């Protein structure tokens, strides 16, 4: 029988504490004076991290798109400081999750949610997040955090109040243990987060990216959360966390990095992120996060105005939101989708459902039959057949 997640998290933290034999909390970053070796407790932390990552990789929640992963890998590589380039392995993977978040394991494995990527506008913004996360690894923040809180009452208190997000898009399905929870939810001390901002900012500028984009990203995520009244359950989406990042970035921009321009990489980023937009919008739509979904669909259609899939999802947005005249707009969009690709099944279903509601039986029958002819093994075949049966009986 599997152990409950709360117990697993607690046990893993206790293991982390027990493993912790060294008293020194201050550690040199990897690469400084050639340093690349691990201390004993750190080695065990890495082993623990690898175990958690295995579970995560088997969870089915990773977004596997080789072109996108290769692009993110190139951005990651561009940020790695010269002194450790080729000597450490830093890898970034994408998680299918509509919430805004990114986190790093102590062994240099960075994870970023599709929901965060969908909110970004360019490569410089992606680089901002990767540089911040990368600094947590290079500067060995996880082991420092574990040592710092060892045996303190406040640490145990922190454990009690960690609100590990559950639900389908929470942590539990990712099967993250203690290390993952700390990275994704509870975060590091304010001092270590500030260090990640400062060092990360430096990596960003050295890699030639425009640092002004860092502030824009935070403002964009904040605006989105406020508009839709979203309470993001993860660290990177939480208001106080974002506020701290913004404060630090503004200060850095006004002081040592004032006037620095650089590469934004908007076109490259838009091209690479394109497929994620609709996939993430579908998750947002199923959760009723309509503004977020609409924003992503609009961006998708800007880049691919002739996309049947894009028009279908915009139609879905209107049909599901169900405000005044939404149904009429949905019909137009479904028809446009059919025009772009007559053999694409889904818009025929959308039309069929609308006509069924409007009592236009013949048009509903035609559209629903067309849907089933293009998608004979559709998951919702039983519903459609029932609707067709009802139409026939009326």
């Amino acid at each position: 029988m599997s152990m409950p997640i709360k117990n697993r998290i607690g046990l893993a933290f206790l293991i982390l504490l027990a493993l912790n034999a060294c008293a020194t909390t201050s550690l040199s970053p990897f690469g400084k004076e050639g340093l690349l070796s691990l201390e004993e407790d750190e080695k065990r932390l890495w082993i623990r991290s690898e175990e958690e990552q295995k579970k995560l990789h088997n969870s089915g929640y990773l977004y596997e798109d080789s072109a996108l992963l290769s692009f993110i890998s190139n951005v990651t590589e561009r940020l790695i400081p010269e002194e450790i380039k080729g000597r450490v392995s830093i890898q970034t993977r994408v998680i299918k999750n509509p919430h805004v978040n990114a986190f790093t394991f102590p062994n240099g494995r960075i994870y970023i949610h599709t929901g965060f990527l969908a909110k970004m506008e360019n490569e410089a913004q992606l680089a901002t997040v990767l540089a911040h996360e990368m600094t947590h690894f290079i500067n060995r923040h996880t082991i420092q955090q574990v040592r710092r809180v060892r045996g303190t009452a406040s640490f145990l208190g922190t454990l009690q109040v960690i609100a590990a997000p559950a639900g389908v898009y929470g942590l539990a399905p990712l099967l993250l243990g203690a290390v993952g929870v700390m990275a994704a939810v509870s975060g590091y001390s304010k001092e270590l987060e500030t260090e990640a901002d400062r060092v990360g900012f430096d990596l960003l500028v050295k890699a030639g990216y425009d640092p002004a984009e860092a502030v824009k990203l935070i403002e964009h995520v904040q605006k989105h959360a406020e508009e839709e009244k979203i309470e993001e359950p993860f660290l990177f989406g939480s208001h106080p966390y974002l506020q701290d990042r913004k404060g630090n970035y503004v200060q850095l921009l006004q002081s040592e990095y004032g006037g620095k321009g650089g590469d934004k990489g908007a076109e490259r980023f838009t091209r690479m992120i394109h497929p994620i937009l609709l996939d993430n919008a579908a998750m947002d739509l199923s959760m009723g996060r309509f503004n977020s979904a609409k924003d992503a669909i609009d961006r998708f259609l800007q880049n691919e105005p002739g996309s049947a899939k894009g028009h279908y999802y915009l139609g879905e947005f209107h049909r599901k939101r169900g405000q005044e005249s939404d149904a009429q707009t949905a019909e137009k969009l479904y028809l446009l989708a059919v025009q772009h690709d007559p053999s694409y099944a889904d818009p025929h279903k959308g039309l069929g459902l609308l006509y069924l509601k409007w009592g236009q039986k013949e048009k509903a029958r035609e559209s629903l039959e067309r849907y089933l002819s293009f998608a004979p093994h559709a998951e919702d075949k039983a519903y459609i057949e029932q609707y067709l049966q009802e139409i026939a009986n009326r």
Partner: protein
Amino acid sequence: MKTAAIVSCLALLCGCAPYVMVGGKYTAGPENFEVDLPQGWRKHELRFDQHPASRVMLEELNKRRDPAGDIVRLTRDGLLLQQIIIGRTGIDKELPHTKRKLSKGMLPQEVAEVIIDNIRSNPNISNQNVLENSPARLSGYTGFKLIYSYQTKEGLRIKGACYGAVVGDWYYYVLYEAPERYYFTKDYQVFEQVKDTFKILKADTT
């Protein structure tokens, strides 16, 4: 605390217990339905259940699913082991976890989507899976049937079955939840029989 004590005393004085043996026809006139309740099962009377241990149990159960619309809650061996729930909720009322809303004229598939998202968005449970989502009839009205499972924070896997339909301004449901191992299968047929006898009295009760 004082109120709870008074209610408990009154309940004892009146001979009211938190569980009442049931069996046979049950009519909920104000709630517009009738149903045959199974012999040997007990109906839980929330208002008489003031025992501190029950409070803890009910709080736990209420985290798993919102009981706001529940009208009849039945069990044979205890609410943690199996429960059949019959209820209804106004379609204008927001569901506790999803941002999506029910509305009049929704097709059964659309209603099912909202109910599924409400289960999936519940932060108190995890590993939610929808095992079946199919069209079904409830009291002769077109609706849906869901079979789903999830895990409680304590790690217990729960399996549920829910028949639902929007009729007029109300969403009606007959639901069954039990631990996935052993208990779900044990009383599933009883639940199906209860569902088959469920009858909405008037089509439109707006």
